[in-house]
């Protein structure tokens, strides 16, 4: 369609009044144009409030295809009349050529007669009123005649909606905004004549992509913090551990409740470990059963069988113990270690407990490391997690002394929450390993899931880790960044 022409006609008409019927108007401007395009054009002006459209529904009588044929070539009876020659025509041929009704109508009008089985002209001349009627305004025809034409299928009723067009509230606004720029617009430079506007109330298209799990996002931030602080990652890819490295080497007595089956997963196959250490074993046995290194010891009958039992590690501190032992073997050097990996507890699942979760652990080994150092480094660590108000509560842990629970004032939750545990490893753990006497090792630990739950506002751990996680949850959450205080 010629938009310019329609726009020009539209506004010149509206300048002087209204358009009663958009269809008629469209026909009058350009009968060959598609009315739907015209409606599109009108609607786009309406959306700018330039014009006002009133929708009107009406029933109109229109010519059928047969009716249009009449307009072109006359009514069937007229065509029959015109075609008659002096020899006449058999009624069968007439029916065949002009339809069943032509003969009857022509006869009724007295235009023809039957002579010896042949149709002959009777009237000198005829006036084709049907054609005249259909050429004229159908709405002005006599109702009875109109009904006849409908029966003859020259005319049919059609629903014809149209718009009444009048000036809009912003009649003078004549520029239209587009939301899209196309290659065609670049080619024909039509973009320069357009103005653009995009919809800010709808959501955009969801990008096609993969997503990282929230625990990974938080884990990566934690790792970055440790790296920034000069910590070295420990190798933790061993879920199966033995009682020795998980408990005994840490000076955790064999009757300790944590070693009971309701806390620890014991392994049926492979059930036991052997040769997991050297003379170290004898020193560990001694410090448990009779004491030593300035310690009274736990004083009980230490059994190698307990140490040999395989378990799923209950904490990554088992790995820390292996690493510290290695450090003692290789000649002590100051170290800062960290790890973030899975640990296992034989617990029934609920909103805050899983049978497996991730432990975050930091360890510092150096000469004369003090409790003030531990408090300092933990404070620095949590500062980088955005928590700068922390305090420490005396606590008990079989392998650290002193032991402290870490509490932090959470800026999002606006209350004190327990953040983790910490302490200085007992000499009964370090000295049997062969570490120098003035070397002290401080450590702290927390879970990865809890800060992740706080960060992402979740109250059920089962919604973040496990086999039944909703993929939509993974897809719909922000990146993780902590504000370093």
């Amino acid at each position, binding site marked *: 369609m010629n938009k310019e022409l329609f726009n020009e006609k539209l506004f010149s008409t509206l300048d002087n009044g209204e358009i009663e019927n958009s269809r008629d108007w469209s026909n009058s401007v350009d009968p060959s144009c598609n009315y739907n395009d015209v409606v599109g054009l009108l609607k786009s002006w309406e959306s700018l409030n330039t014009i006002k459209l009133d929708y009107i529904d009406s029933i109109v009588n229109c010519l059928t295809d047969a009716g249009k044929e009449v307009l072109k070539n006359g009514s069937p009876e007229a065509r029959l009349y015109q075609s008659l020659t002096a020899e006449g025509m058999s009624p069968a041929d007439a029916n065949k050529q002009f339809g069943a009704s032509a003969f009857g109508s022509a006869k009724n009008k007295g235009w023809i007669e039957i002579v010896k089985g042949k149709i002959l002209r009777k009237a000198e001349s005829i006036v084709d009123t049907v054609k005249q009627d259909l050429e004229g305004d159908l709405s002005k025809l006599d109702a009875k005649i109109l009904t006849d034409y409908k029966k003859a299928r020259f005319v049919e009723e059609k629903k014809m909606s149209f718009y009444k067009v009048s000036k809009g509230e912003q009649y003078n606004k004549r520029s239209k905004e587009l939301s899209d720029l196309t290659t065609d617009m670049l080619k024909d430079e039509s973009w320069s004549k357009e103005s653009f506007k995009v919809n800010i109330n709808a959501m955009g298209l969801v990008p096609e992509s993969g997503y990282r799990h929230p625990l990974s996002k938080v884990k990566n931030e934690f790792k970055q913090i440790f790296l920034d602080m*000069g910590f070295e990652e*420990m190798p933790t*890819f061993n879920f199966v551990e033995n009682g020795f490295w998980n408990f005994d080497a840490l000076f955790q007595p064999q009757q300790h*409740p944590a070693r009971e089956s309701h806390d620890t*997963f014991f392994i049926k196959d492979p059930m036991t470990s052997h040769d997991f250490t050297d003379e170290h074993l004898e020193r560990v046995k001694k410090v448990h059963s009779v004491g030593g290194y300035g310690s009274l010891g736990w004083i009980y009958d230490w059994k190698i069988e307990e140490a040999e039992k395989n378990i799923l590690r209950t904490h990554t501190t088992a790995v820390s113990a292996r690493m510290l032992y290695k450090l003692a073997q290789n000649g002590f050097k100051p170290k800062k270690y960290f790890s973030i990996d899975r640990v296992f507890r034989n617990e029934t699942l609920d909103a805050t407990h899983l049978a497996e979760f991730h432990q975050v652990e930091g360890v510092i080994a150096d000469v004369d490391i003090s409790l003030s150092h531990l408090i300092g480094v933990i404070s620095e660590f949590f500062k980088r997690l955005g928590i700068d108000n922390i305090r420490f509560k005396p606590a*008990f842990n079989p392998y650290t*002394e002193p032991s402290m629970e870490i509490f932090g004032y959470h800026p999002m939750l606006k209350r004190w929450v327990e953040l983790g545990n910490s302490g200085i490893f007992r000499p009964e753990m370090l000295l049997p390993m062969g570490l120098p006497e003035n070397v002290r090792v401080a450590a702290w630990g927390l879970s990865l899931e809890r800060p992740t739950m706080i960060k992402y506002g979740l109250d059920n751990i089962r919604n973040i880790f496990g086999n039944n996680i909703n993929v939509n949850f993974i897809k719909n959450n922000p990146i993780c960044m902590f504000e370093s205080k």
Partner: protein
Amino acid sequence: MPKVNINRDHLFKRLGKVYTQEEFEDLCFQYGVELDEVTSERDMILKETGVEDKAASDEVIYKIDVSANRYDLLCIEGIARSLNVYNGKLSIPKYHIVPPVNGTHEKLIVDKSVEGVRPVIVAGILRNIEFTQETYDSFIDLQEKLHANICKKRALVSIGTHDLDTVKGPFTYKALPPKEIKFVPLSQTKQFDAEELFNFYDTTNSHLKKYLHIIKDSAVYPGIYDSNNVLLSLPPIINGEHSKIKLSTKNVFIEVTATDRTKANIVLNTMLTMFAEYCKIPHSMEQVEVVEADGKSALYPQIEEKQISADVDYINKSIGINIQPTEMVSMLKRMSLESKLSSDSKSVTVSVPVTRSDIMHACDVMEDVAIGYGYNNLVKEIPKTHTQGRIQPINKLSELLSAEVALAGFTEIMTFVLCQNQDNFGGLNKVEDGSSVKIANAVSEEFTEVRTNLINSLMKSVVSNKAAPLPLKLFELSDVSVKGSTGNKDLTDPNSNNSDVGAYNKRMLGAIYCANSAKIEVIHGLLDRVMLSLNIKPDTTRSGKGYYLEIGTDKVFLPGTCINIIVNGKKVGYMGIIHPIVLKNYGCPFPCTVLELEVTMDLAKNIIYQD
């Protein structure tokens, strides 16, 4: 951590001060206990039964969490005593032994027959005690608390307390066949033999039922008898009605039986020291002579104070403070520890009261100084330890690969390592080959093995997300564990993978595509992308450098669709269309295609610069 229920008003009366809750919480925090809950008897009944009991007391009860190693804080007596000393309102109590009233010690003779059942017994006496209803209840409660904690539900240790004036020594500790043990147990009126009694507790679902297993299968049951053969108690189950203590009891005989002597002594000493303050001579106790089967005898309780020394310098350096030795002595005093300085003031020696079995090394003394000083009064110091940050190469590689796979349109999942047998074998159409790590004592049927593969985890996640729009594209890059050894037993090698335990982890990449058609080219495309990321090129000539595919036969895949992935001539994983039987096993109605490959540093050879 053990919880102790304490009547708030009674506690405040003992502390000589009415605290606001906040003040009290603060005091607890500094000392190292925690006010866990504020409730009342009525509230507790309501919570437990859902019924309001108007008859129950609505006096405020504080539930206090105490450290698992502080048995001396398991009753109101101990908590109040410790806090009063901490607050400087009370001097450190001196527990002491008084000579026997009759001139000779009560005797307890151990018979050989108990050797195989419950060999250890120790005992002690509280003379001229004055109980009130409150202190009597506390006395009973402490026994329960000790039984639940250090006594390991009576299996390790159990306590019997008796009115000494109702029985007559010497006492005998011996084991007899159950049928021969006849007595009226506590709270009963008729006589039972031990076998009947066990049946009775078992069938009436008594609260004692849970202890029966400790000795039930023994041929003989241990018992303590007086000289008239009156049974005092049948440990670790019940005492006799005859000798039961009452509010009016004046002299209390406490016997403790056990399988571990150290723990038995701790329990006996705790019972005596906590309640000796109600004796006519406060903090005093009388010893009992225990004659062992071999004729050797010893007096109990043994309450000599252990002496533990710590260097002043060590304490200061370990805490990161610089206080005078005399200040240390006063810090320790707040923590109920009497101490003396050496003549040169270079070390401090603590006389450890019998109540503090947790103190066994100089570091324990150091801790008490630190608590006395206040953890939150310490200056925060960053250690000068100069080290370099470093990440495990395999974790670095895993992280980079995870990012690539996510960029390729797959969503990361994190699932449990724990699974069941069918997830390692049957469910995946595989035959059990003994390669999986199996758990002996799982509480949940779902967690009886460690996963050997990621396919089961991927299938479970797809099924949990059946309702999500297809296609689902998920991946996990995580560990599995298998039995065996990598052959590297060098303990000092961090990559030894702990071969000494007979199982090791493998780092795996698993990805799944789930849609209305299996479209193996999607997963195949991911493999190509991963290989491209690792700079591993297609090995079209099968030269042993790069990667190529070959048709495999693993039954987890639809026959004909299993593709083995060969990198540098070695199989590193496989991919294929999941077998419809496996889909059915996991309840998945849609076709799935899976890739699983082991991620090792070998894969990173082409992206790491090597000289």
